[in-house]
């Protein structure tokens, strides 16, 4: 079944690497649901986090194809293990005197934060996993959402697991995936 997968890709931070990744998706008819890119702590690398729908075979093929790109150093399907996933939603919501108290209550309950406001509009930030952002947006929808901007997802494996920065030197690394 085509469910969303989060794929974390470590790449060399060089010109054109994002185009190569995006071209791969469009050229082979894969979809990108969301995409975030930023340099890692070592700025010669960047981390690309891609959310893409697909069944297991498709995702396996996407991961292999990504690995085939020369500037791609490591590909991890974070949906396989449990990962910490995070995204941010920024919303402008209309609020009036009658519903202000109720709105502020939702904001507090959801752990959202007011970033900016005037008499009529509150700009709030909500962060968390995809569901948290989605739920918050649904909760404040009745107030009137004027604008909704959402980041792509970033994700990291849990404390005990690591994604190595260096591609394993061992020759059979890829074979291990299969055995």
């Amino acid at each position: 079944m085509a469910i969303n997968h989060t794929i974390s890709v470590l790449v060399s931070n060089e010109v054109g690497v994002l185009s190569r990744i995006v071209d791969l998706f469009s050229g082979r008819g894969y979809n990108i649901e969301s995409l975030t890119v930023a340099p890692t702590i070592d700025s010669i690398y960047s981390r690309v986090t891609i959310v893409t729908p697909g069944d297991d075979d498709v995702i396996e093929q996407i991961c292999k194809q990504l690995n085939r790109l020369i500037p791609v150093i490591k590909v991890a399907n974070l949906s396989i293990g449990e990962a910490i996933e995070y995204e941010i939603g920024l919303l402008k919501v209309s609020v009036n005197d009658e519903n202000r108290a109720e709105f502020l209550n939702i904001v507090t309950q959801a752990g959202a934060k007011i970033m900016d406001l005037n008499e009529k509009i509150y700009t709030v930030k909500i962060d968390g996993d995809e569901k948290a952002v989605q739920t918050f947006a649904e909760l404040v929808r009745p107030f009137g959402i004027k604008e909704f901007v959402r980041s792509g997802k970033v994700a990291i494996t849990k404390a005990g697991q690591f994604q190595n920065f260096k591609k394993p030197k061992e020759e059979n690394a890829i074979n291990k995936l299969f055995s």
Partner: protein
Amino acid sequence: MNKVMYSGAEILLKSLVKEGVEEVFGYPGGVVLPLYDALYLQNDIKHYLVRHEQAAVHAAEGYARVSGRAGVAIVTSGPGACNTVTGLANAYYDGTPLILITGQVNSKLIGADAFQEADVVGITRSCCKHNYLVKDVRDLARIIKEAFYIATTGKKGPVVIDIPVDVFNSKYTFDYPKNVELVGYNPTYKGHPLQIKKALDAILDSKRPVIISGGGVIASDAHRELTELATRLNIPVVHTLMGTGTFPDSLETSLGMMGMHGNYCANLTVSNADLIFAIGTRFSDRITGCLKRFARDAQVIHIDIDPCSISKNVKASIPIVGDIKNVLNTMLQLYSKTHHKPDLQQQNKWFGEIMEWKKKVAIARKTSDKLSAITVLNEIYNFTKDDEPVVCTEVGQHQMWTAQNFKFNQPRKLITSGGLGTMGFGFPAAMGACVANKNKYVLNIAGDGSIQMNIQELMTCVDYKFKVINCIINNGYLGMVRQWQEKIYNEHYSQTKISSPDFVKLAQSYGALGIRVEHEDEIVPALKEALSYNGPVVIDFICESFEMVYPWVLAGEPIDKVLLSREEV
């Protein structure tokens, strides 16, 4: 100490020499002037001037496929580079190592819509293994080193190096790097030992095994290992179009080509196998037919150096990522040590079935007095077989007839466009083959349609006295498309009747030898004349228009549904 400074153009040529390049194919232009000037001033590298940039890339591919070394082509920016796209895509598909040097406008003008500017890195991204835009002459030698490494390792392929004119002119010292450091590129060469053991056990336990040998066997130079393993284990071998020559056709266990126009026997063997040992094949739709009904009882073992090819189309139960030569050697060593032997009785039973299928062959039927293409090709084969020449083909009916009727006992002898199916590939590829072959004669089997796609290269061949013998199967149609129209589109021959110039006169006007053949008794004399001629030849075989390629599996059908003659529906 003052180090000697070289221009980017000189650095490029010096790097090519370091990589062992002796011959390049190309076409000059504005922004590569500094490079052509540097070429003019040296004697290490011979440049062959083609007549179209597409031909330069095909020629480099023909060269690479015959020699096993990376081919090199040089073109100018904009239109020159754009003309190479088909050649790149062809080489990418068929896994041929190539280096394409494209000139680029001055790096300060990139993006300014300068004269003859094209976003070459963008355009070629999806049809090459990797590409570079060199922005600084200091990176040039390293990039060339990396490019050759990437092109010739892993699943081989073309790499494009786009070099702005100011980089050709800038000066820097020359220090060719010894090693390549690419963190993101580490092809797997050694197969996983447990997987190999598992595979060997599965093969020995199987009752109806078959090997599918693909182009990867040639790329890995593993035909000897394949032959040894298949012979020792007594497993029948079928090959794909790209795998032609990997297993000698002269051996009894060779069942020939499989796929859409493969042998009945090869297709039936694969369809009825309980184990498919696939070696260096992508399982293209042209060999699997209907994927859902492909070899339903078979367990699949798949060796490939490219993990992407494994389980892409056909799910492999025992995947082995690695270099084929390495993996097969490991398997042979394991087999020498194991007491596990194949079941002779089962093998005899399986071969018994296969021998029955071998009896069923396509039935040719003559519909007019004109020459039969199949007769012509058989005559060409018989006349030339002792020389074992390199045979190039274009794409279409003649290509399939060549694959079906010529027997190949060595790899790198059939050079054909497999994946992309590029008409116009064969002739320039034959030029490259001639160069790689030190000008032994090369056959190019062509159709009257295909040959017209790069006919201008006759001039190149005349200039360099390339002994390319073009055998045109001239049937007045784009035969393969016509064949589909006859069978599937109610004989609506939409735009497939194609006229041609007088090929004999055309050849003569270029300064080549032209011969026309209309009767069977003229075939051998024509070939004799062609072989004794010191230069390119065009033989125009006027053939029957409505001959069909059989066996034929219609698109979407499973490969055991083989049509053997026109009468079958």
